[in-house]
């Protein structure tokens, strides 16, 4: 590697589609580094003796090492290093909240120019996808043992656990409720942020390891967890996510034209309503859309609404900008595309027309008071500040709770007071013998990378347990 004479603090920007163009199409917004740009960014890494970056990554990717491989032009090696810790780099590179993880703890962050680790990760994954012959060589032959593991849910937690166990020789079957595998990556996160072809690629890779994926299988209905254990599975890993939507719980919320973010995004992404009537599933957006909440989900919903043809899209949030939970990058993308932020504002009721469709929402202003249990200032309603905003569509994007189907049909699973399954953080064990859990079902709504990490830890513990069982 060339000597680094002085620090280069010019982070290489990633090319994007122009806002006025992209806000009307579903193609990916960020276009990815070209080779020379990736090299330029990689060469900014100073290969720290004590690399802060690694500590910020929930799965401890060997960041300086894979960056060095890029710099040396040894892409197969970069792929190998990356994949030894992170089996879904094409996804994480795109959707990890890097600014609060690896890039926050990069030693250059203090100087305001952390290495663009996520973008480099994405670059390596995209290179791999363009050179499929390389991974084929690396995979080698797997010899199966006679142990069977069932995995419930094919989101990042389930896919990671499946891949790890398959590599160790277990016979793995994933049961997935929907008609495609991928979980939130498929039905929630929109195409323009995470192209489905990339998720499909990762799913195909997991299948190529010999994992069987049974779609259209709702565990708890077609078979219970207990039945899986009785019918030949040695272990079960539960990764059903936290898919049940929350609503505002205010009058008028059941009017037509009010969609939970889950429904809005599922219709759009999974069912491809943006291609209606070529695809059969319809969606209605109208002219004015109000999205309630300010997390990643709200950003995704508002940006989808624009792309579905809405003229004005509002994010209505009861706290201020500083408290918005969405990633900075997504917030900026939304702003650039023209999403309007109505901060310190909260809805009190929806008003409908004679056909039962929403036509307006009553909003009121808020002030910030003392910090509440979450440590954020408590929003308080300003008396007499009510006003009416006409809307055609409303999307409450308030987060999700665990779906009760698994807990209510499985004997002896202890739950937490939030309805999540009580799970040991390190091993993924639950209160039930031979049953592990991970991802959003164990933690509540979190991130792709933390779900992956949980899948990986559970795979390790399942392996230890089953290896020692005879």
């Amino acid at each position: 590697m060339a000597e680094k004479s002085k620090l280069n603090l010019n982070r290489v920007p990633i090319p994007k589609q122009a806002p006025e163009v992209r806000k009307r199409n579903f193609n990916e917004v960020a276009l990815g580094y070209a080779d020379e740009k990736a090299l330029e960014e990689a060469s900014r890494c100073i290969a720290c003796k004590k690399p802060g970056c690694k500590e910020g990554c929930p799965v401890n990717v060997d960041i300086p090492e894979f960056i060095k491989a890029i710099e040396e032009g040894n892409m197969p090696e970069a792929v190998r290093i990356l994949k030894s810790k992170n089996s879904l780099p094409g996804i994480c590179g795109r959707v990890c909240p890097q600014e609060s993880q690896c890039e926050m703890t990069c030693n250059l962050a203090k100087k305001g120019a952390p290495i663009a680790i996520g973008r480099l990760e994405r670059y390596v994954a995209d290179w791999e996808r363009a050179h499929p012959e390389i991974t084929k060589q690396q995979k080698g032959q797997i010899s199966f043992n006679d142990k069977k593991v069932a995995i419930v849910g094919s989101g990042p937690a389930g896919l990671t656990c499946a891949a790890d166990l398959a590599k160790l020789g277990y016979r793995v079957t994933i049961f997935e409720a929907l008609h495609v595998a991928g979980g939130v990556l498929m039905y929630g996160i929109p195409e323009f942020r995470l192209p489905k072809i990339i998720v499909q690629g990762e799913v195909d890779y997991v299948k190529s390891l010999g994992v069987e994926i049974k779609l259209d299988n709702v565990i708890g209905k077609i078979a219970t967890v207990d039945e899986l254990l009785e019918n030949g599975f040695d272990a079960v890993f539960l990764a059903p996510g936290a898919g049940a939507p929350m609503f505002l719980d205010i009058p008028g919320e059941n009017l037509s034209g009010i969609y939970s973010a889950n429904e809005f995004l599922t219709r759009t992404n999974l069912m491809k309503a943006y291609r209606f009537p070529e695809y059969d599933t319809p969606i209605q957006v109208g002219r004015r859309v109000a999205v309630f909440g300010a997390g990643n989900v709200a950003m995704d919903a508002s940006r989808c609404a624009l792309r579905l043809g809405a003229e004005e899209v509002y994010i209505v949030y009861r706290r201020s900008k500083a408290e918005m939970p969405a990633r900075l990058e997504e917030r900026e993308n939304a702003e650039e595309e023209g999403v309007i932020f109505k901060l310190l504002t909260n809805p009190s009721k929806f008003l409908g027309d004679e056909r039962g469709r929403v036509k307006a929402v009553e909003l009121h202003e808020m002030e910030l008071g003392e910090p509440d249990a979450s440590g954020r200032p408590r929003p308080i309603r300003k008396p007499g500040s009510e006003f009416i905003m006409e809307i055609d569509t409303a999307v409450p994007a308030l987060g999700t709770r665990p779906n009760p189907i698994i807990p209510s049909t499985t004997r002896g699973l202890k739950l937490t007071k939030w309805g999540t399954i009580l799970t040991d953080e390190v091993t993924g064990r639950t209160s039930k013998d031979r049953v592990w859990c991970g991802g959003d079902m164990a933690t509540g709504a979190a991130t792709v990378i933390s779900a992956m990490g949980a899948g990986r830890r559970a795979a390790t513990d399942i392996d230890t347990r089953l290896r020692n069982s005879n």
Partner: protein
Amino acid sequence: MYKILKREVLVPNTVYLKVEAPEIARKAKPGQFVILRVDEVGERFPLSLTGWDKKEGAVEVLFLIMGRSTMKLSSLGEGDCIMDVVGPLGRPTEIESYGNTMCVCSTFGVGPAITLVKALKEKGNKVVSVMEAKDETYLFWEDRLKSVSDETHVVLGDGSRGKHRQASQFVKEYLESGNKLDRIFIFGRVFTMMECSQATKPFGVKTIVGLTPIMVDGTGMCGCCRVSVGGETKFTCVDGPEFDGHLVDWELLIKRKRAYLIEEARAFDLWQLDNLRRIAELSELPERVSVV
């Protein structure tokens, strides 16, 4: 892929299918439904289970041709495959020894009604069945329902069988003449369910209805199927589909069911244009009928 083993056009707008799905057949119970997706571009939509055959590994459904999805489904023949069939979804019907029970059904409700009547009989209940149809042309499976019920009454909309034109009128008169019912179940058109619920309310008869809001996933993930029951919002796919008919907000259900009328008509017309040949090949030309 789920293979169609048997197909029958029951009446001009209603088709019966038996579909290979051994795992669903093994677990199915009365009151449950499946979600189907006919092809790659298809929407997800629910159909009640009309029966299941554990030995043959098959489930049965029957459906009214309403729009694009059901039309598409009706255009498949024996040996063809449905892309996705998910189930059994929803909570099974609560079946106990109630005593005197009644089962009312209209249109596709005949399917779920027959499975329920059988199960009610097994628990020792007396079951009076009431079937409602527009006229003789649209009446099917009368003999089947008769063979499992203690008593069966047919009510036709043209008044050609007895004096009643709606099942709700029959129910009302039945109760007014002093007959006792411990529980009544109603399946099929929303109007049948709503009006029968209104008829039983003054008599305090526990009334169970199988609601049919628009659904997407059918697993509690989207909230599209929300209904209001006793002032509380419920998700039909996981909390239902059966609820107390006296507590259902019918107006809301009907309005939500009609939310996509324009889009549905457009999708239906476009599909028909693209498939004129296929439609012509189908023996009976289906008629579009409203179930709300």
